[in-house]
């Protein structure tokens, strides 16, 4: 099951020139672009691992594409997203994030039922991938 987080996730995967154009747009807006990685696809998992530092003073997208290529070499079997952070007053938060790399196979989610007091049922989703220990989840 293809997970849909962040912008553009209902579209086909972005191509390299498309990623570059999006990144350049973010840079031109004055946002700091960085890369983040995870192998836990749960939709509520918002804190991914950082790949390097946010790139505050790069005027060109080539630097981000260089890092992305490096990141794919190491974590090509995981989810990688581009995060654009706006440090401007009043925003100070992420303005745009989108997935640029995903595992070849995404096993999807299991519905977990938990019985609570008074025969009430609580529902949760658990990614099948998370059954395996972190680091061995894909491939």
């Amino acid at each position, binding site marked *: 099951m293809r997970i849909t987080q962040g912008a553009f996730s209902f579209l086909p995967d972005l191509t390299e020139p498309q990623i570059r154009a999006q990144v350049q747009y973010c840079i031109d807006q004055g946002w700091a672009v960085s890369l983040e990685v995870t192998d836990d696809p749960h939709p509520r998992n918002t804190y991914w691992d950082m790949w390097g530092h946010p790139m505050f003073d*790069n005027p060109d997208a080539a*630097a981000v594409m*260089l890092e992305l290529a490096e990141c794919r070499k190491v974590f090509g079997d995981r989810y990688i997203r581009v995060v654009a952070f706006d440090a401007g007053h009043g925003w100070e938060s992420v303005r745009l994030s989108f997935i640029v790399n995903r595992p070849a196979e995404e096993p999807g989610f299991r519905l977990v039922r938990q019985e609570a007091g008074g025969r009430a049922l609580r529902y949760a989703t658990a990614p099948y991938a998370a059954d395996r220990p972190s680091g061995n989840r894909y491939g």
Partner: protein
Amino acid sequence: MADSLATAAEGIDLRAEFERSGVRDVLAELDRSLVGLAPVKRRIRETAALLLVERARKQLGLAQETPTLHMSFTGNPGTGKTTVALRMADLLHRLGYIRKGHLVAVTRDDLVGQYIGHTAPKTKEILKRAMGGVLFIDEAYYLHRPENERDYGQEAIEILLQVMENRRDDLVVILAGYGRRMERFFESNPGFRSRIAHHIDFPDYSDDELLGIATVMLERQNYRLDSAAAAAFARYVETRRRQPHFANARSIRNALDRARLRQANRLFETSTGPLGAEALSTICAEDILASRVFSLAAVRESGDD
């Protein structure tokens, strides 16, 4: 020259390209704002013509490869290497060879780390910042320290060479430094020599050119030399040139700064009434003749006798 090439290219009007890309403005600005440096200007003009033709060829599908644009600027201190590098970045940007046209000026300290494993991230950080623009490495020969074989400079050199080769579309590297030491640097790092297409040598300024530079500098700050001061300054330039640590235009700038200081002092001590704009912006001969350069020269000459 451009006209004859235009007919050969069939369909691409080089003259119009020259106008439209704004290259002409950059070259005209270069001519106007920089005194002297005739060989440098000629080389830049040639380079611009080459790049313009190369771009036209690319549009017609005659060339695919991006030409090697890395350069080395050699010349004595204060001959305008950094200034010209700035113009070069603008020129390359207008010709579309680099995407942003900014200049990142660095020295050894910015590239080389202080402990093992520090150099690579530091160099990469700088390279990333320079992407889409020009990386200007001043006094590049300090990267190579032959006396210390475990110096981290070598690591920075290797990363630089790799990026210069593989990322030619993304950034242009300009190495700058004093002539002879750069020569030795290239000898011990042949990788650099083969990756650099354009070597531009910056000659020293003549006395007249230095005077011209002084005039331009003063005009920019709304000062002027009176005729006695101009004569004194001509003598100053002649004397200063023969003393050690002469740094061409930089020495001139420092001399003018000190002359302004003396002028301010003189006005402060001698003025009795209100001063007009004329008095406030005129530098007199005595402001220049008070310089240590003249007394040093006198000492040296009497010592020789």
